[in-house]
């Protein structure tokens, strides 16, 4: 039997042979890759905004706009990330239940916690064989929630607050996110927090890509191709 991170999944699935399940709907997959591209652009340009590349050109300043373009790319990618995040949250409401996994943790569910423990044991090489999961495994769900939902959410809020500084008081960004500036007092702190957030997401990227490839090889189900085709395939017919 295949299992999601909680028992609900068992219902409605055939008991015996299960080779392919449609898990990630098109909007979820498109969001994943757009999000990945946006984060990549944001990390690179964001790093340069904190530590600018060496100065180029000794011409008049009006001849070039290099730092301006770097910042433009950062802001544009940030806006795409924000819209994508909102769209993804909307899809969590109207999409299938796998689409909801990112936005909550079933902390009240003892079974879910046991599965988290099982996954930790699997990654510590204490379990010989992994379990099958249709959606995210519980440990992955935990990581996604803290790194992507909270992490990206934090970056959007702090990022738009920093954007509000440039947009100016009275702008819509200032109306919506200016309270963050007042909360931290000195926006130098906000820059530091936003910068640390980049590393938080970068760490997730390292772990995420490694684990996705590792699971693709070592687990009993497809991982990488699932985020492209949307279908989860299983390598064996044994239960669980």
């Amino acid at each position, binding site marked *: 039997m295949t299992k999601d991170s909680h028992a609900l999944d068992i219902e409605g699935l055939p008991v015996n042979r299960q080779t392919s399940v449609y898990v990630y709907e098109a909007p979820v997959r498109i969001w994943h890759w757009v999000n990945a591209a946006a984060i990549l652009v944001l990390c690179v340009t964001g790093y340069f905004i904190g530590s600018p590349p060496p100065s180029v050109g000794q011409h008049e300043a009006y001849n070039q706009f290099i730092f301006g373009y770097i910042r433009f790319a950062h802001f544009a990618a940030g806006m795409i990330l924000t819209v994508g995040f909102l769209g993804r949250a909307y899809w969590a409401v109207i999409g299938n239940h796998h689409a909801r996994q990112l936005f909550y943790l079933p902390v009240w569910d003892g079974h879910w916690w046991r599965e988290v423990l099982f996954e930790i044991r699997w990654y510590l090489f204490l379990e010989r064989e992994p379990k099958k999961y249709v959606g995210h495994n519980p440990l992955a769900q935990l990581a996604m929630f803290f790194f992507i939902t909270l992490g990206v959410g934090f970056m959007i809020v702090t990022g738009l607050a920093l954007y509000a500084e440039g947009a100016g*008081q009275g702008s819509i960004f200032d109306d919506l996110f200016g309270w963050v500036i007042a909360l931290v007092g000195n926006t130098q*702190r906000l820059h530091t927090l936003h910068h640390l957030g980049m*590393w938080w997401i970068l760490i997730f990227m390292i772990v995420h890509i490694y684990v996705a490839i590792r699971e693709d090889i070592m687990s009993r189900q497809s991982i990488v191709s699932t985020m492209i085709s949307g279908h989860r395939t299983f390598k064996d017919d044994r239960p669980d």
Partner: protein
Amino acid sequence: MSQIETFYEVMRRQGITRRSFMKYCSLTAAALGLGPSFVPKIAHAMETKPRTPVIWIHGLECTCCSESFIRSAHPLAKDVVLSMISLDYDDTLMAAAGHAAEAALQDTIEKYKGNYILAVEGNPPLNEDGMYCIIGGKPFVEQLRHAAEHAKAIISWGACASYGCVQAAAPNPTRATPVHKVILDKPIIKVPGCPPIAEVMTGVITYMLTFDRMPTLDRQGRPAMFYSQRIHDKCYRRPHFDAGQFVETWDDEGARKGFCLYKMGCKGPTTYNACSTVRWNEGVSFPIQSGHGCIGCSEDGFWDQGSFYDRLTNIKQFGVEANADQVGMAAAGVVGGAVAVHAAVSALKRAQKKTQDKVEG
């Protein structure tokens, strides 16, 4: 109250001509961002309104706010506003001293109850019952509370009164505390800066005296007319920032050509003040114009944001001084290393399992 002189009377008594008075009114209107139609309104208010008494008290501070104030580019601001203030109470500038000075303070409070503006320079230290700052034999915090009780409004002069400044920098041994955290029941205007620009100080006072109300404040309680934009937003070196032309070292070609000081740690992008528009010393210059980055002196806790010459703030919570990049790179290095080791062990395990499966199969 009719026996109180108007501003205009005080000015004329100071030997100021009508012509100079009108110049002052138009300069003030311009500084406050008001149109020419406001000039007669300011003049009318100053001619007819009794002047508002001001009490100016000093806590833990360096007097740089007073020093800045008396150098205001408006000749009349320093002559008139200052003389009007010293008529009431300012222990640094007034002629009286000792018991006479304290008596003057008490007189002013009694006479203008609920009607005077309290200007606070510096802040009260709260540790050891406020014993780190004694004024007239009592802790300053008591004088502050006493004077604030019947004040109409409070002006927090400078970074000390607004945010705490250097005496409140970590670990803040005297527990120096900004005014708004001690006086909770009065309207407070923060005029931060170390010191604030003289024209900003006189502008704020003139606005309050003339219009008899508080200027519009931003979320942090600063007058929006002077603190709603960053130094960066109006910096004349901004085109070099957008072009990606930075000063890399203090003596390079970029420094000579006046490139952006961002890489030298300029805090202009995170500092709200009017330096890049009003400038200093009668509009002569401001730090960035003279080739040094902004140190962010009008921002909350600017002493605790690491070096003046770094963009990336030190994060002291990690025990050693590190910035966000060092912390992030260390964490990413550890995780990356762990991933590599984990991958190696995974490969071994898999090879082992395959062999076992073969044996079992």
